């Protein structure tokens, strides 16, 4: 259904199948690997990754969508894992910081963050890097002002911001 003059007339199914509230078995595709996990439907993608799948790279900074530390990709787009329910990710591709490097070889953005000292405590860093790589793909890194705006969803309390911009510039200019 789309345009207003073509109303939907599909008959409704009587009852949609309902899962939960007790734990249900779901399969998540994380970093290219199918992972079966038992979760209640209320479990966030972030808590599923961190507490059930041993992927603690994505960090919990606020659990309210206000810091960006939990940034991961779902179907290639950067999103906040704290406001995403795990069960909604069935059938979608989830990518976390653990899936960025190729074996021992760091992604260029990971190397650039180290070179530019784009972090101090490192806690927001996985989210920053997942955001930064996505930013380049989105094409919003033409200048520092644009980078700053489009990286503003990732708070760095150590305030490494100028160095984060430098790291992104470096990778952009190498490409």
């Amino acid at each position, binding site marked *: 259904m789309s345009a207003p003059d073509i109303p939907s007339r599909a008959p409704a199914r009587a009852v949609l199948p309902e899962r939960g509230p007790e734990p249900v078995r779901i399969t998540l595709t994380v970093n290219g690997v199918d992972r079966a996990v038992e979760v209640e439907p209320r479990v966030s993608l972030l808590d599923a990754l961190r507490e059930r799948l041993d992927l603690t*790279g994505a960090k919990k*900074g606020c659990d309210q969508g206000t810091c960006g530390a939990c940034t991961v990709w779902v179907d290639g787009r950067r999103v906040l894992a704290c406001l995403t329910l795990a069960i909604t990710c069935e059938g979608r591709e989830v990518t976390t*910081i653990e899936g960025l490097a190729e074996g021992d070889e760091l992604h260029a953005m990971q190397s650039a963050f180290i070179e530019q*000292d784009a972090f101090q405590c490192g806690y927001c*860093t996985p989210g920053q890097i997942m955001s930064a790589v996505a930013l380049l793909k989105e094409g919003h890194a033409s200048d520092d002002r644009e980078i700053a705006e489009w990286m503003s969803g990732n708070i760095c309390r150590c305030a490494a911001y100028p160095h984060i911009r430098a790291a992104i510039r470096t990778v952009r200019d190498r490409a």
Partner: protein
Amino acid sequence: MTTAPAVGRPVDRVDGRHKVTGGAHYSADVRPTDRAHAVLVGARVPSGRVTGIDTDEARQAGGVLAILTHENLPGIATQPPLLPSLAGMPAPGQTFFPLQDEVVHYSGQPVAVVVADTLERAQHAAALVRVTYQETPSVTTVAQGRDDAYVPDAIFGGFVPGRSVRGDVEAGLAAADVRIDATYTYAANHHNPIEPAATTAVWDGDQLTLYDATQGVAATQLTVAALLGLSPSKVRVLSHFVGGSFGCKAMIWAHPALAALAARHVGRPVKLSLTREQMFTSVGHREEQEQRIELGADKEGRLVALRHHKLSPTSPFDDWAEPSLGVASQLYACAHYEGVYRLFRANTMTPTFMRAPGEASGMFALECTMDDLAHQLGIDPVELRLRNYSETDPTTKNPWSSTGLKECYARGAERFGWHRRRPAPRSHRDGDWLIGYGMAAAGYPVYGPNNPQRARARLYADGTAVVQAATPDFGTGVATVMTQVAADALGLPWERCRFEGGDTALPGIAAAVGSAGAGMISAAVHTAAARLRDQLVAQAVADSQSPLHGADPAAVTVRDGRMMLRDAPATGETYGDLLHRNFLPDVEASGAWSPSPESHHYGMMTFGAQFAEVAVDPDLGVVRVRRMVGAFAPGRVLNPKTARSQLMGGMLWGLGQALLEANYMDPRRGRWVASGLGDYLVPVNADAPDIEVELVDVTDDIVNPLGVKGVGEIGQVGAAAALANALHHATGRRVRKLPVTIEDLL
């Protein structure tokens, strides 16, 4: 491999790879088998008593293992006194431990701990605990408490007197040619590191292991041991990665002990992470405050008298204020001085250290007032400060151990282009924007520990070394710089050294607070590593099979792991040769360091100068910070890369302090109005201009062996004042409150 000294090189962080791959495990990332989750329930009223706790519904929710309240939690063994954690003793953030009785002192005070098998179940059950209260009137704001203020004997754990006087301030003010009387108000601030405080507690019999987000593992160990009545020997604390602190993990709050008690109660490992909202009511804050400055000067702008009073709320239990008057009383030569702290009891927890604790607020008041003085007398602000430069510490008349302040002014001004500033406000424009330039001085004390700081160095026969000290790395880069320090002392390339920390099983280090970490830890590491080198050299010259046999140890130098005669480098051997030949898999030495008694005869301070350019949209009141330049003289810089990052971060904290960061108590409800990062605004990337950091070289033989004065706080001191002074220059408007927001500029 290089032979140049490692110290002073911009080495990449040694833990960088862990941090960029998600491989760095913070306290909430450890996952012991069978781990349960604890969630705190906070009081919903600021004052009164708990009259009932109905846990029936919560108990019936799935997965609940325990609900602990004052009715069933074991009482604490002892409440240690409040001492700053640098003292190296138990360091509770306040002398109140919750869940001991039914009295509520402040909103958010824990009234129950819920433990369940999953986080979601613990959170849900916590929401189902029904607590009823008998509420009594509360006091939470300066406006409410002003009339009940008192002057305490001492604040800050007893280290700072409530009143300090030199000369006769009243006479000085009377004699002054110019007087300025100004009052400054400050919103409360919260640290808000992105990692919420978290503790994972694991019991093995009567042995407790805590994974805790802390600035000092020993502080956690000693505090929890005292509270639980355990021997410290039964408590091990690990803290390998800490996601920022800025002071809120410098003191030990209730949650590590509560995690331990909960774990003992349920017989399983327990993780307790504070929520973001709980970070506003559980780990201290920078208190709301008001400061009044009365300043008298002669016609040339030389200070004659300074009166500096502060009024702020403290908790019902402790006399705490951040020491705002300290550096502001020491920076300028001024014969007549009076500083007074006034406190009133309020329904809050005890406030605590927050980056540049005291200096950031006190220097804002002083440096804005100095800007007023410069403006009033028509003297350039830099020149005014040079005229008031003090060759000695004005509070003791002791000489400075090192300064660099004048050079900071000069180098900062040059790098900034200060000479382009036209003195009159509103005299620079860029299109519709009003442009302003401002500056301020910066100072931060060099603190020393109260007890010996220890480290251990071990060299393996393969020529690699491990150096150990108990300190965690919460973003300072300590693991990186200590690798460099050890490398130079041992005569090894830094790549062959590794630092291990964050574990009370390692040699003891006090909490790394007050910018003291780099100085005291490098002293311990240097001492241990140098002792190990001397031990190896001594063994070589005593070894008849060594080419160095019989040599004077003082004539031996070590480079790239090879001991050799300084004057005949061909004569020598590697550490590895010596060890292999003597069937030694490794050699180890320990070192300890305490500040020298001589240091008491010096004023010890890190100095700096801050410069800022702002653009103001005069119609809309919008401020954009265009650039900030800071020149600092922090003594020896162990690693300019990590040091610059910390200084830059501090300056941007000044930006947040100046323009964004605020929390207020709703006086009717006695609660903070902001409880998350959506309403407590910290700078985002778009707020942060590029930052220029100028490092001014000063040698200091007094503070510690390597002459390190610290970079953690100085970056923030004076930054907010430089910005406010730039706003005044841009608009002609003097705003005496923090933060400065749009309504102040309309």
